[in-house]
């Protein structure tokens, strides 16, 4: 029996009849969304893998924010490994009247040990795909190599001079490819490569400078491994070993997080598509009941019918999923475009694995949610050919969808890369559907009690809802899910983005000066006065690392929270002050008085206290410049970081940290018309690090904008899937409505009466859906804020109003539009069709 050919023919016919459109659309959207993210992350993964040691510039790196003891280098040389070192720090670079914050990398001969450093002597204009030539050398003394960003922003040509601290260095080449500079948020600023021997003359290495010292090591794998083991046992806090396997972990983590978030967003469209598919197949099976009964009557066995539809849907699934994969392949280019701020690299072409995953997702989705109604079709009684009132014993219920739900859960866990997260998101959906369904049934019951009241239209509307209780609840839950996607995309997203972005108050400080030395305080004050700007308050800074709490030593490994780990791993700034800053607020304990001067007490910022677990009364031990410093916490402060004033996580009273090596920091507001001031300032104080807050905020906001646009783009799939649900939900009762309309009109009901009673029904269903959507969207917004973005989401009361109004308006309009054609047909035509 050539069943396959028959199913192909039936597929074609069903397609022609428009029976499969919603289903195919939903499937394409779901697979498209998944593969868009899949292809994109595949390309990033391939780029990361391809770079390997290229990314590191070595086989192994020992990094520290203090000068590395010489035993590392000695041991590496003793083992016969190649070594080189680099030193990285931010500083101002000037040329003519303009200056720019840049990242300086000073390197010694041999850099890079792995990967290629490519340069070119061609300047002027960005040349796309400019390869440059591989060089084995580093900049000669007195010269620098610069990257494109610096070339463009300072309008530099070959032979120009730039000022770095006290030195003037000649630009001789432009870097086209540099190891250790490829993917990540970190490389936002322009970069300069200099010869390490030029560094002392610049005078930039001073107390309090943020420097990362690196020892690069390369050689035979086994020997490198021996060296890794040897160094591991000698690492002190603040020193770390980075190998190929843990190359740039922060970038990998950031990209992993982005990928997970995008995947979860794409999965939201999969869930909605599942709802649309379930609704569409339910309608499909209802419409095919007669056909199946006829086939049963004509001799088709149950397995024949099942196979017929399995072939039918498998073929459909393969075609729609393939189209979805193609869509994903095209759409991922948009992600690459929007996320280019994160990925400064030509990405390799993706592998076909995401397409395989896409196909698999599509098939699982389709079969998981189409199978229960199809299994039902096979058992349609043949007697239906004689008695149309015999339908299906609908015994599958939600349990029938357990295959689909299980498959979706597996997908969630897989894509979230986290069993708990995957299960909780999926569990959240199921619980939401269950709660919505329950509330829906209760409300329908309550509303049914009102059916005796109100005008004729309401009475019929309510009566219809009562009669189709299950259908109405299914409809409003499905519509609620679709609308929820819409609300999340509009209101919640705006709320979250508003929380994300911070705007600068007009008179807020817009320049930070860091790295001010004690002997420069007086000249700086004079300089400000000479330029008619009131000297801003200056704060001392002492760098220290938290090493113990209440006498117990702590190491990063004690913490699971990544921020806590980072806070323990790195040095941060401590300061002292007599008065508390006006934008600070004591939330626990008390600020010190004059008599506390010199007492070893601390005030800790609320956020850091919470992350690391510090309470008032705790004793903290810091390693400051190699010696321990212990003090007890007397207050916890809340800091308004948005004020852009200088603030510190940890502050002591005066007279406690004064003996330790310190530098100073200040912030001030520079009016735009005084732009020259900065150039003079840098020339007079070349070691200062000037941070242009406005441009940083601008840069960060640009990144946020683009990332959020990428997220929005993925959410577009969710939105479309939401529309598919809306359509499928409204279509699900269409046939019944058509039948009803024919009878009502035959009995003399006016068009307007019918429209009014349907409008009443859709209004109620839409209202229910709107309330469900608002509840779901609020919960989802809270969850996204709390767990994905780490910010507290404040509930927006407007979401309820918007949800309710949108639900009523959208569903009523869409519902009436969907049923419009019914009204224009002659009742007899419809009755004949049904007969």
């Amino acid at each position, binding site marked *: *029996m*050539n069943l396959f050919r028959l199913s192909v023919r039936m597929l074609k*016919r069903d397609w022609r009849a428009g029976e499969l459109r919603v289903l195919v659309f939903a499937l394409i959207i779901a697979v498209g969304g998944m593969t868009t993210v899949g292809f994109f992350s595949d390309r990033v993964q391939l780029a990361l893998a391809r770079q390997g040691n290229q990314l590191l510039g070595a086989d192994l790196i020992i990094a520290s924010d203090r000068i590395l003891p010489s035993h590392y280098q000695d041991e590496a040389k003793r083992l016969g490994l190649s070594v080189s070192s680099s030193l990285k720090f931010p500083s101002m670079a000037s040329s003519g009247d303009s200056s720019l914050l840049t990242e300086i990398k000073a390197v010694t001969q041999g850099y890079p040990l792995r990967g290629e450093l490519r340069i070119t002597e061609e300047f002027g204009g960005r040349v796309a795909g400019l390869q440059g030539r591989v060089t084995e050398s580093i900049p000669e003394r007195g010269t620098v190599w610069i990257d494109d960003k610096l070339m463009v922003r300072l309008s530099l040509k070959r032979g120009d001079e730039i000022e770095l601290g006290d030195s003037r260095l000649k630009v001789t080449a432009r870097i086209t490819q540099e190891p250790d500079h490829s993917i990540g948020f970190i490389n936002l600023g322009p970069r300069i490569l200099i010869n390490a021997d030029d560094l002392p003359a610049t005078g930039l290495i001073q107390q309090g400078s943020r420097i990362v010292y690196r020892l690069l090591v390369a050689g035979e794998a086994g020997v490198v491994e021996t060296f890794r083991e040897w160094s591991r046992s000698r690492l002190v806090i603040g020193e770390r070993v980075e190998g190929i396997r843990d190359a740039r972990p922060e970038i990998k983590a950031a990209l992993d997080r982005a990928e997970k978030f995008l995947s979860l967003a794409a999965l939201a469209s999969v869930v909605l598509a599942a709802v649309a598919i379930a609704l569409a197949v339910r309608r499909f099976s209802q419409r095919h009941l007669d*056909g199946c009964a006829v086939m049963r*009557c*004509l*001799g088709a066995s149950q397995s024949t019918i099942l196979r017929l539809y399995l072939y039918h849907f498998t073929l459909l699934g393969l075609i729609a999923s393939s189209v979805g994969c193609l869509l994903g392949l095209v759409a991922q280019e948009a992600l690459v475009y929007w996320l280019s701020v994160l990925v400064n690299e030509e990405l390799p072409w993706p592998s076909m694995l995401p397409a395989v995953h896409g196909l698999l997702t599509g098939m699982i989705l389709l079969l998981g949610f189409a199978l229960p109604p199809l299994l039902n079709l096979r058992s349609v009684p043949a007697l239906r050919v*004689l008695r149309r009132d015999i339908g299906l014993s609908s015994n599958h219920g939600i349990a029938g969808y357990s295959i689909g739900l299980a498959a979706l859960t597996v997908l969630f866990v897989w894509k979230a890369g986290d069993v708990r997260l995957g299960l909780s998101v999926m569990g959240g959906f199921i619980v939401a559907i269950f709660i919505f369904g329950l509330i829906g049934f209760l409300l329908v019951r309550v509303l049914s009690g009102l059916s005796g009241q109100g005008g004729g239209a309401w009475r019929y509307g309510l009566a219809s809802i009562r009669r189709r209780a299950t259908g109405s609840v299914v409809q409003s839950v499905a519509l609620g899910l679709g609308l929820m996607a819409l609300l999340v995309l509009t209101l919640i997203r705006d709320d979250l983005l508003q929380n994300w972005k911070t705007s600068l108050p007009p008179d807020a400080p817009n320049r930070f000066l860091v790295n001010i030395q004690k002997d420069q305080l007086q000249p700086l004050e004079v300089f400000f006065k000479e330029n008619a700007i009131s000297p801003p308050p200056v704060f001392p800074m002492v760098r220290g690392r938290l090493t113990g709490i209440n006498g117990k030593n702590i190491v990063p490994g004690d913490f699971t929270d990544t921020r806590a780990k980072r806070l323990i791993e790195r040095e941060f700034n401590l300061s002292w002050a007599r008065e508390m800053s006006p934008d600070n607020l004591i939330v626990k304990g008390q600020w010190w008085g004059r008599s506390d001067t010199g007492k070893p007490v601390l005030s800790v910022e609320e956020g850091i206290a919470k992350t690391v677990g510090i309470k008032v009364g705790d004793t903290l031990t810091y390693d400051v410049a190699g010696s321990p410093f212990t003090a007890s916490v007397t207050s916890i402060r809340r800091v308004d970081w948005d004020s852009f004033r200088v603030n510190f996580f940890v502050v002591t009273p005066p007279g406690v940290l004064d003996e330790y090596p310190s530098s100073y920091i200040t912030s001030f507001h520079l009016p735009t018309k005084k732009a020259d001031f900065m150039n003079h300032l840098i020339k007079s104080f070349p070691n200062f690090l000037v941070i242009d807050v406005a441009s940083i905020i601008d840069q960060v906001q640009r990144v946020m904008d683009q990332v959020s646009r990428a997220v929005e783009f993925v959410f577009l799939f969710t939105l479309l899937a939401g529309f598919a649900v809306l359509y499928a939900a409204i279509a699900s009762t269409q046939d019944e409505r058509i039948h009803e309309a024919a009878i009502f009109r035959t009995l003399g009901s006016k068009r307007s009466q019918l429209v009014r009673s349907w409008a009443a029904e859709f209004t109620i269903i839409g209202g229910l859906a709107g309330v469900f959507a608002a509840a779901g969207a609020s919960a989802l917004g809270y969850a996204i804020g709390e767990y994905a973005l780490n910010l507290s989401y404040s509930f927006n009361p407007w979401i309820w109003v918007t949800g309710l109004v949108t639900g009523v308006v959208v569903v009523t309009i869409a519902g009436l539009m969907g049923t419009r054609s019914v009204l224009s047909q002659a009742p007899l035509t419809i009755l004949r069709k049904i007969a």
Partner: protein
Amino acid sequence: MREEPNLSPIVQAIALTKQVSTVSDELVILHDINLSVIAGESLAVIGSSGSGKSTLLGLLAGLDVPSSGSVHLAGEDIFSLDEDGRAALRGRLLGFVFQSFQLLPALTALENVMLPLELAGVRDPQHPAMDLLNRVGLGKRLGHYPKQLSGGEQQRVAIARAFVTEPQLVMADEPTGNLDSTTGSQIIDLMFALNQERGATLILVTHDETISNRCERRIRLDSGRSVV
């Protein structure tokens, strides 16, 4: 395959009873029906609405199961078979014509007629289907969908579908019920003509005395009992 008429019964119903439970009591729809139809014979089942005609037809075709009694089709006890076994038997032996035509709306006239052949795995279903549609006068409407055809034309397609597998037995349930009298009599003419050409057995359910008179034999049902 067409078979020569013989005197062995192709359909035999023994003590066929169908009752259903209602809220208050048991409702007897068919009571102790005994029936035997010889191959090639035409039999009309007549009676008023609710007399149990369609129920009897459903039981004879194995579309429904009786409360008691048995039905033998071509010598085989159909209720000893499972649902799929009965379906296979129907595919082999029976053709159906229904009051509401029961054409698949997504299929063209030709495709509707091809369907039983396709289900039976016939290698070239198109030719016999086209021949039969030509025979019923719809040779020019092969590609039309049911909704593009009039009621009479739809019933012709249904008749072509019923005869295309060359069944030994054709069952028709009120085949003119949805048609006007002129069209109805044309349809009946066509059905009888095809039945004779192909030597099939015909069981016809109708409440129309005129139509039933054209059959060789009649049984009348009244409240589920055979009264003739």
